[in-house]
C-alpha cells in the first residue's frame, strides 16, 4: 500500500533555508522529550518575517511619517491572502499602506458596541452623491452615522461596487477558494475574522476595498484600473468605536490569471474624532447631519 504521492508545491513560510521542506525535516529538530521540545520551540522566538504584527505597536519598523510612536495602537503587515481585525476606540486614525502596488485592502466596519450597525455601501455612495471613495468620503452605517471617514488618500484607486470575492467566484476564476489555499476568497477570510468577534455569515454586509480601482463606464461596465503603483496609502478616522475586519485578497475584477496580491501594512494611532470646528464636519449638508447623528449617539453613550 505504501506509495509516494505527487507532492504539492511547498512554500513553508520561508521557514527553511532551502527551497523545499527537507526530506528529513525532523533531523533539524530535537523534540524527543518535553524538555527538548520546549527548547526547540523557544529557540524560534525573536525572529521577524515579511508579514507579522509588531508588538508593541510603538516598535513598528514601518511607522508612518509624523506619527508619535507612543500613540500607535496597531502595527502589522498583513500577508498576501491574509486577514486581520481589531476593535478601535473612537477617534483612532487608521492607515493602510500598499508598499508593492499589489495590496487590496477589503474592509468591513461595524459599530464595535452594537455590531448590528455596520457599513452600508449603498448609503456610503448615495448620501455623498459620489461613487468613488476619496478624501473626506464618509463610510456610513445604515443608521445614518459616520463609522469612519477617509482623511487622506494618495492612491485614488478604490472600489465600492464589487465587494470582495466569494468562494464561488474564486473557484470559477482560479479553480480554488480554500481559505488555507493559494487563492482564498475575501468572504472566506471575513468569516473567520468575524467569527473571532462572535459574528457569522449574516453579519457580513457588502464592503469596500482600497488600492485596486474600479470605474463605471458610460454603459455601466465595471472597469478595473489596478493600483496607482507602489507606495500609496489611505488614512481613515474612526468616528465611532469600530470593529474593523480586513481581508487582503485579489480584487474580484483583477484581470490577471495569477492570484496576485501584495503585503498590506496597517497602522493605527490614538487621535480625536472629527470635531464640529473642523471644515470636514460641515463640508456638505449630508455629512454635517451624519456627524450630528454620530455625535448624538456617542455623547449619549458617554463616548
Amino acid at each position, binding site marked *: *500500500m505504501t506509495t*509516494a504521492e505527487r507532492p504539492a508545491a511547498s*512554500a513553508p513560510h520561508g521557514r527553511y533555508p532551502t527551497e523545499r521542506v527537507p526530506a528529513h525535516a525532523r533531523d533539524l529538530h530535537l523534540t524527543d522529550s*518535553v524538555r527538548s521540545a520546549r527548547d526547540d520551540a523557544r529557540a524560534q522566538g525573536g525572529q521577524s518575517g515579511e508579514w507579522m*504584527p509588531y508588538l508593541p505597536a510603538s516598535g513598528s519598523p514601518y511607522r508612518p511619517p509624523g506619527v508619535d510612536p507612543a500613540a500607535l495602537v496597531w502595527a502589522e503587515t498583513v500577508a498576501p491572502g491574509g486577514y486581520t481585525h481589531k476593535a478601535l476606540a473612537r477617534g483612532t486614525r487608521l492607515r493602510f499602506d500598499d508598499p508593492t502596488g499589489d495590496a487590496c485592502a477589503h474592509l468591513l466596519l461595524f459599530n464595535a458596541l452594537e455590531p448590528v450597525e455596520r457599513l452600508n455601501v449603498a448609503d456610503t455612495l448615495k448620501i455623498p452623491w459620489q461613487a468613488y471613495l476619496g478624501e473626506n468620503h464618509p463610510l456610513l452605517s445604515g443608521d445614518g452615522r459616520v463609522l469612519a471617514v477617509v482623511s487622506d488618500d494618495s492612491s485614488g484607486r478604490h472600489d465600492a461596487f464589487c465587494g470582495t470575492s466569494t468562494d464561488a467566484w474564486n473557484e470559477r476564476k482560479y*479553480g480554488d477558494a480554500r481559505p488555507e*489555499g493559494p487563492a482564498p476568497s475575501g468572504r472566506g477570510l471575513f*468569516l473567520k475574522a468575524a467569527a473571532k468577534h462572535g459574528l457569522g455569515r449574516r453579519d457580513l454586509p457588502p464592503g469596500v476595498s482600497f488600492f485596486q480601482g474600479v470605474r463605471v463606464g458610460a454603459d455601466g461596465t465595471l472597469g478595473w484600473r489596478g493600483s496607482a503603483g507602489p507606495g500609496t496609502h489611505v488614512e481613515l478616522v474612526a468616528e465611532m468605536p469600530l470593529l474593523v475586519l480586513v481581508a487582503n485578497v485579489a480584487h474580484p475584477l483583477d484581470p490577471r490569471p*495569477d492570484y496576485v496580491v501584495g503585503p498590506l501594512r496597517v497602522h493605527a494611532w490614538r487621535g480625536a474624532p472629527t470635531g464640529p470646528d473642523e471644515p470636514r464636519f460641515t463640508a456638505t449638508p449630508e455629512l454635517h447631519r451624519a456627524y450630528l447623528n454620530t455625535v448624538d449617539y456617542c455623547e449619549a453613550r458617554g463616548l
Partner: protein
Amino acid sequence: MATTRTGNTPVTFPTASGGTVASTVPVGAVHAPGSPLDRGASLVEGAVVLDDTVAPNAPWSAVVRRGHVLTIVDVGGNQSADCLLYDADDPEERYSVPDTLAWQGNAYVRTGTVLRSNEGRALMTVVANEIDRQDTIGGACGKESNTLRYGHHVMFQHGCRENFLAEAGRRGLGVRDLVSNLNWFMNVPVEADGALGIVDGMSAPGRRVAVRADRDVLVLVSNCPQMNNPCNDFNPTPLRMLVVDPAAVAGGTRSAAAAGTLGGTA
C-alpha cells in the same frame, strides 16, 4: 515548478479543482517529495459509507450515523488529526475533554475510551487503535496561540483553529462552539514532574484508529498544518477518513470479527 518567493513573484500551486494557479499567497507546507504514504483500510468490516482523503492543511467534516465506525488512517505517519465531536441533532452537546478523562480516570485515549460530551454522555467509543496512546490534552494550534509559542513572525501561518472556524461555519457553528479537542496520532506526555508538551509522535504511515458513533455525531477534523513543532513530524501529510456500516457488510453477512468488535451497538 519554482518554489522560491521573491517579493510578489507568484508561485505555482495545485488547485482544488485539479489545475494549477500561480499565487503570491504564502500557503502552508506539505509533505516532502518521496514521503512514504500508506492509505490503509478500514479497521472494522462493514459496507463503506464514506471514503474521503483530507489534504494536508485542510479541514473536513461529516456526520457519522449511530453504529457506524469511522477509521482515521494516518497515511503519512505522525500527522495530527485535530478532532471535535458534536451531537448531530443538538450541537450544543459536544465533546468534552474533562468528562472523557474523568469518567475513565486516565489522561490518555486508548481502545475502549468513551468520548463523552459536556453532558457526560457517550458520543463515540474508540473500538480499535494502533498506537500506544492518543492525545486529548494538547488542544489545537492557532494563529494567535502560535505567536505565544514561537513568536509573532508566525502570525500568518495557518492553524487548526482556522480550519475549525472555517469548517464549523459551513455547518452553522461558530467560535462559541470550539472547545478543547482530540488530537489523533499526536503525542503529548505528562512527565513525572508535570512537564507537558508535544513531542515526537509514536505513529507511522498507515497506523489507524477506529471510533464508533454511539449516536449521530458530527465529526470535525483539522489536518494540522503546524510546522513549528513535531506534531506533524515537520512534514504534513494526508489523512484518510473511512466510515463503514458494520451492520451492512457487503454480501449481507456480518463477519464474526466485526460482530465481536461491535456487539451491542445496534
